[in-house]
């Protein structure tokens, strides 16, 4: 019965709000509940009438202007913070520009020298050739993001020690972590050290948040879980970015070693001048022994080394991000 009253109340409220029904019409639809419904509907109507206010025009105008200004600032900030592109991204443009210059020079030579038949008629003059696109001196924002996150982690760490972790800080951490993890979608825009630094930071973050989770409100704990999940995604991305260099290692070492070379070694020294082809066999043997030494040197860079220096570089003033 009570359940029905709640649902009927909602039905009437929705109908009233949409203007399809009056209180009386609603009550007529549910005569058995009318006595209970009527005062509630009047109260609800009073609420709706009471809250039917709009912000003052002066405030609304000022707020709108501030919002539009913030939108403009954000657009400018995004343009500036676009990550620096590696040099090879500009190679096609550079090649294109170079080809254009060569073509223009060739065409001018043809035009002036009288060669090339019909081309002679065309007045080609290129006074200045500017590259189509030149790399701008843009600053990578990853370092800034990492620094911000580290500052926030530090804030959470100290908060946890004193027993009060601000929900706001957790929420900001979540947003910043998501931004940082998104930046891993364009790995070519990141330096390897930056990727390692991000990985170390995310690992540090995961550990800290697992410890802190117990000490925050249930509401914040949900955010903490979300951050841990995002950080996990980030670390998976890091692994993917770094993994291609690690794959060649297994094939190199085992197969080469059992070659039967020792018995052949005397022969090449005996006839060095006569047959140059025979000298190839001894050189093959030492190379086989060298390969095992090469493989271990390839593997270490694959393992992301956490850089503790990154955390120490932080300035506490950076925690002031809203």
């Amino acid at each position, binding site marked *: 019965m009570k359940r029905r009253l*709640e*649902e009927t109340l909602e*039905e009437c409220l929705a109908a009233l*709000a949409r203007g*399809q029904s009056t209180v009386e019409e609603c009550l007529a639809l549910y005569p058995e509940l009318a006595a209970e419904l009527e005062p*509630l509907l009047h109260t609800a109507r009073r609420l709706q009438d009471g809250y039917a206010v*709009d912000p003052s025009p002066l405030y609304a105008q000022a707020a709108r202007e501030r919002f539009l200004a913030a939108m403009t600032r954000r657009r400018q900030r995004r343009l500036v913070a676009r990550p620096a592109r590696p040099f090879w991204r500009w190679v096609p443009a550079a090649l294109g520009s170079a080809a254009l210059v060569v073509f223009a020079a060739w065409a001018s030579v043809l035009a002036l020298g009288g060669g090339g038949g019909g081309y002679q008629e065309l007045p080609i003059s290129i006074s200045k050739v500017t590259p189509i696109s030149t790399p701008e001196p843009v600053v990578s924002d990853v370092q800034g993001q990492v620094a911000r996150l580290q500052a926030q982690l530090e804030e959470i760490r100290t908060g946890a020690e004193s027993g009060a972790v601000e929900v706001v800080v957790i929420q900001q951490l979540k947003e910043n972590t998501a931004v940082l993890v998104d930046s891993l979608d364009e790995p070519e825009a990141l330096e390897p050290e930056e990727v390692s630094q991000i990985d170390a930071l995310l690992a540090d973050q995961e550990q800290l948040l697992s410890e802190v989770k117990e000490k925050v409100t249930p509401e914040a704990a949900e955010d903490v879980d979300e951050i841990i999940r995002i950080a996990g995604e980030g670390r998976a991305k890091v692994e993917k970015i770094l993994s291609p260099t690690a794959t060649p290692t297994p094939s190199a070492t085992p197969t080469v070693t059992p070659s039967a070379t020792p018995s052949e070694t005397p022969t090449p020294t005996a006839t060095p001048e006569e047959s140059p082809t025979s000298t190839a066999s001894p050189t093959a043997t030492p190379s086989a022994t060298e390969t095992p030494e090469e493989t271990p040197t390839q593997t270490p860079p694959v393992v992301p080394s956490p850089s503790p220096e990154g955390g120490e570089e932080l300035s506490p003033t950076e925690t002031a991000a809203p």
Partner: protein
Amino acid sequence: MGYDGRVASLAAEGGGFWRCQPLYPGLEGQGERPMVDAARVGDEGAIAELYNRYFPRVYRYMLVRTGNVGDAEDLTEEVFIRVLDALERFEWRQVPFSAWLFRIAHNAVVSHQRRDGARGRLSPLSPSLPVDTQGPEEAVEARLALDEVMEATRNLPDAQRRVIALRFGAGLSVAETARALGKSGGNVKVIQHKAIVKLRELLVEKRPEDHEEKA
């Protein structure tokens, strides 16, 4: 005709009843998805359109939550700045846009209350607060009504206050309110019912003669 069917048929007819724009019909069916998608990828026209659409609703929501015009104004602006920063990460598969936006609004209120260390400062409404009425007498009456309603709402338990703010301030539907609060629709209806019963008691205490007449 069942419950949903009756509501749907009523909803299909349209029209206006309240002094301001209708507060109730949520934005689910209003085809805002293309606008939100455009805003997500940085279309400033779409962002501005969303701002226009939600600004008064967020403001009313803040008014209900804080009971204070100054705070409501500050927090409304704060919400839209947060939305601006987070918009590109919004995903449809989690919640509708309105629910997502009002979660941000809720978080802003919580942060604000922690900063202030209070449940909301009590202060009279700004005398310049416009109410959608014609004459000065009506304006005064409306302002008194708003004062009264806000004072009563302030005395509700937090969960009820949140539901009232989303339903009567922001004008969200039950479904949108449920998504914004992470509750079921049934749960929202129960809380809403309790809140209205409680508000009635509080308002009757304040002006018993008014309610006697109506009853």
